[in-house]
Structure formats: C-alpha cells, structure tokens
C-alpha cells in the first residue's frame, strides 16, 4: 500500500472502486435490461476514473469512448429494437447448477486477486506523464505487437462479415 499519496487522492481512488463494485452488483441484479445496461455504463465510468487516477489518461478515455460511447449504445439500441421492456418476459431461468458454478468462479477470482496483491507488482510504465500520451501506446502497438494487432483486426472483419451473412440469410429465408 502506498503511504506517500495525499489523503484526497486515496479517498477518491477507493470511492470510485466502491462505486464500480456497487454498480457491477446492481448490473447483475437488475431485471430490466435497460437499467442493467446503464449500470454497466456506470461501471465503465468508474473504471475510467481509476485509470485516469493511475495516470493512464489514454486508457481511461478510450474506456469511455469505446465501451460507454459505442458498445453500450449498440447494446441499448438492440434492447430497444427488440423492446425487451418488461421484466417478466426477460427474467433469468438459469438452473441452480449454473448459479453454483458462477459462484465458484467468483470465489476463484477473488482468491486470485488476493494472491496477486501479495506479490510485488512489476513497474511497467515510467511514472511521469509524457508530453504526448498516445505515442508510448502507439510505439509498442505498431512495432512489438504489430502481428497481434493485425490479427485482431482480421478477427473483427470476420465478425462483421459473419453478422452480414446472418442478416442476409434472415431476409432470404
């Protein structure tokens, strides 16, 4: 635990952490799909705040831009398009076995987090904020991880083509 940080900083850091966990809990317990989606947006915001407090400005902003601004908008759009408004129609019918399995995975994750917290954390990035925050990300992305980056873009392309094919088959059949 860092002790050299101002109290104000520590307070806000934990505040956003608690808010993120609370919103995530609300996200999985709400029955209305639109409310659930909005709580997930709130989780994204809290995570973005945490990233910014860790001086990862770029990751924080991209978190909002991609997840809250694009992916969740599409989610809400689809929910509205299907008009899944009534909680009675969309309630969860999963079996007890699935719930137990989910609980076990959650416990496993918690154990993992606790174990990782005991390890010394490697210092990856330089602690001071550079003048140009995008450059360090771009430099490694387009040199060291270029192959992975390009493969990911092909993967996304395949997903788009798949979606178009499914939509086309629907109209012909």
């Amino acid at each position: 635990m860092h002790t050299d940080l101002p109290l104000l900083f520590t307070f806000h850091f934990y505040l956003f952490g608690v808010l993120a966990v609370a919103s995530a809990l609300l996200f999985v317990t709400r029955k209305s799909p639109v409310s659930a989606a909005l709580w997930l947006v709130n989780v994204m915001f809290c995570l973005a705040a945490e990233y910014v407090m860790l001086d990862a400005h770029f990751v924080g902003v991209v978190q909002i831009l991609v997840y809250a601004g694009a992916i969740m908008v599409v989610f809400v759009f689809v929910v509205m398009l299907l008009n899944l408004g009534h909680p009675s129609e969309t309630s969860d019918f999963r079996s007890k076995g699935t719930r137990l399995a989910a609980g076990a995975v959650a416990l496993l994750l918690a154990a993992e987090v606790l174990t990782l917290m005991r390890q010394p954390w490697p210092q990856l990035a330089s602690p001071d904020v550079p003048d140009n925050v995008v450059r360090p990300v771009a430099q490694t992305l387009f040199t060291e991880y270029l192959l992975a980056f390009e493969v990911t873009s092909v993967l996304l392309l395949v997903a788009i083509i798949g979606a178009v094919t499914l939509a086309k088959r629907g109209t012909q059949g």
Partner: protein
Amino acid sequence: MIQAVFSHGGVIDPQTPIEDFWPFTILTIVKMVVVFTVYMVGVALLTFAERKISAWIQDRIGPNRVLWKGFGQVLADGVKNFMKEETYPEAAYKALFILAPMLAFVPAMVTWAVIPFASPLPTRWGLMSMAVADLPVGFLFTLAISSLGVYGIVLAGWSSNNKYALLGGLRSSAQMISYEIAMGMSTVCVLLLAGNVNLNSIVEQQATQGWNVVLLSVAFLVFFVATYAETNRLPFDMPEAESELIAGYHTEYSAMKFSMFPISEYANMVTASALTSLLFFGGWDIPFTTWDNVPPWTTLKTIVTLGVFAIKVIFFLFTFMWIRWTLPRFRYDQLMSLGWKVMLPAILAYVVIIAGTLLGLDAAGIARSSRAFTGILFGLNLACVGVLLFVLDRGRLLSPAQSRLKSAELSRLRQVASRSTLAPVTGD
C-alpha cells in the same frame, strides 16, 4: 494530477505554468464558474437568437415585446417553463424518464471543460491555461463525451413507453452511431497533421502550418455535415420529425423537462461550433500573424484571442440557424445512405490519401512548417474537393435547374413564356 502541496519561497515567473496547489485549485474553480455561467447565459440567448434570425430570414419581426427589443423573451420563456405542470405518463419508466433530460444536457456542457478558448493568461502565481482542464488527452475526451449524448435521447424515447417516442429514440441512436463514425474518421486527418491529442497542440499546429480547413478541406466538409447530424439539427432532425413522429423522443415530456431537450440541443450546437472552429479554423489563433502564438504571453493577447474565438463560434452558430431555415428535412433512408454510402467511403479514401501524402512529403524532406508543405496540401485539397463535388453533384445540385431539361424543351418553354401576358414588358 497530484499537485505538490507547498509554496515557492522565491518570486514566481508569470510565464511558467502554475505549480502551487491552492492558486491552481482556486483559479480552476473560478474558471469553472465563469465558463458555466457564460455558457448557460449564451445558450439561453441562443433560443432568442434563433427566433430573431428565423424571423429575419422569413421577413418577419420576431419576438419584440418583452423588455428592450424583446430580449426579455428568454426570461419569460424560462419562467413559463418552470411554472407549468409536470406530467408523468402512467406507463413510463419513471427513474429513467427523469434521468433522460439530464443525460441529454450534461455531455454537451462537460465537453467545454477541455476546450481552450484563448491564449494562456499570465497571473502572479504563474501562467494560467485558458481551458478549465488542459488534459493531455483533450481531443479524445471531447470525442468520448460527445458520444454519450445519444443516451439522453434514446432513454427519453424508451422510458416514455410511447410508440412515437420510441421510434424517435431508435432513429436518433441509429443516426448518431452512423454519423459518429464519419466524424471520428474526419478527425483522424487532424490528428495525423497535429501528431498529438492535446487540443492546444492542435491550435499550435494550425498556427504554424495554416488552418486545417485549407489543409484538410474534405475532412472539414464531412465533419461539418456530421455535426449537424450529431446535434439533430435540420436537415437531419429525424428524431423529432413532427410530420411523422408528432414530436419524436420528447412527445411525453412537459414543462422544464421538455425544455431541457431544446436547451441541450443549443448546448450541443455551441459545443459543435467550438469544436469546428478549434479543429479546422485555428481555435483562438489569429490568421496571418504569429503575434498571438508566441511568448511572452500578455493579458492583451488573451483578450484579443478570446474575442477571435468568440467570433468564430458565433459565426458557426449563425450558420447552424441559417441552414435550419434554408434547407428542408432529409428522408430517413436518404440520411442513412448519405452517412454510410457517401461520407464514410469518401472519408476513408481521404484518410489514405492524406496519410500517403504526409509520408511522401516527410520522405522528400519537406519540413512541416514550410510554405511548400502548406502549398502542396492546399493544392491536393483543391483537387480532392473538385473530384468530390463532381462525383456527388453529377449535374444536379450545383448546375442550374434548367440543365435538367433537354434544350429543345427549354426553348419551347421560353417561347411560351415570351408569348404569355405575364412576360415582362421590354422596350417601349
């Protein structure tokens, strides 16, 4: 982020950024209050400006009764909206119904936190940046926040539990997602030239290389059209097309909650105008001089650049209104095909052209701040705009209406006109 909590022993140079904690915090709060106040008053006055400008365009007088020249109309409207009864539809999802107007308004306002509106101001505690928060990721911040504006409209449509409202909300989300892509791609070109995502460095880039409107004309055209779609202004106000959807997403709203939607529309207009002038018209830069871009910073420079920025923003606000009262509304399928089949391919091709040209110019050793660089990009853009207009127009819009007729038909019509008694009498 974390400011050192100690004060300097010696004298502070007013030309270096503020480092002390308390002056920084207090000045930031002052900036927040000032920007918020000016912004809110400006938005309120815009509703009045819209009515006056529409009246002027339609050759009417417009509101002219309340107080001096009708300026009190803004107050009267505000009081009226607060006094009216608020209604809640029985089947509405109440929590989101109340939240939606706020969600529509807040993103437009938050964007102003990062917009630099003048050159830095020297104070006794150091140099104060004339943006509420001069973030290193300022530009991405504006994109991220403006992409959230859609939630307010979508949720208003959905939570009203009304078919017209839902259709309005659906249209709006489809429209905003579509045009956001074209808008994002057009700003890629700006980032290619600036090489940084800090808004002040984008202003700096335009001060040295020339405004982006001449360097990236096609990107500007696409961005300009996309901002109209993003702010739901005519000719893209499909979400509230009265003739089709009653009032669209705000059909069920009343009193001040209803009023929040037009207010957020005007707020979005101000933000969009500020972004247009910032990304393509040099921000607070004064053209043809470098007096305003170099230290030492003075109070006079701050005031003059603030005035220049205000003039640019007001011009674009006027353009928003001018276009609203000039062009009719698009049909919904036309709107979608313009976004996906014209603007997106055009801007994708343009990004490739600009990136290739920059690579070529850098390889040829032409410095980015040289006149040759600006000249070559300007020439390239003239060609691109020419090609774009030729392809888009195909002799329909720019050429006169009579060219659609065959020449034989045209001469026949002219003969009819000359024989009729309605023809103007010429000679004696």
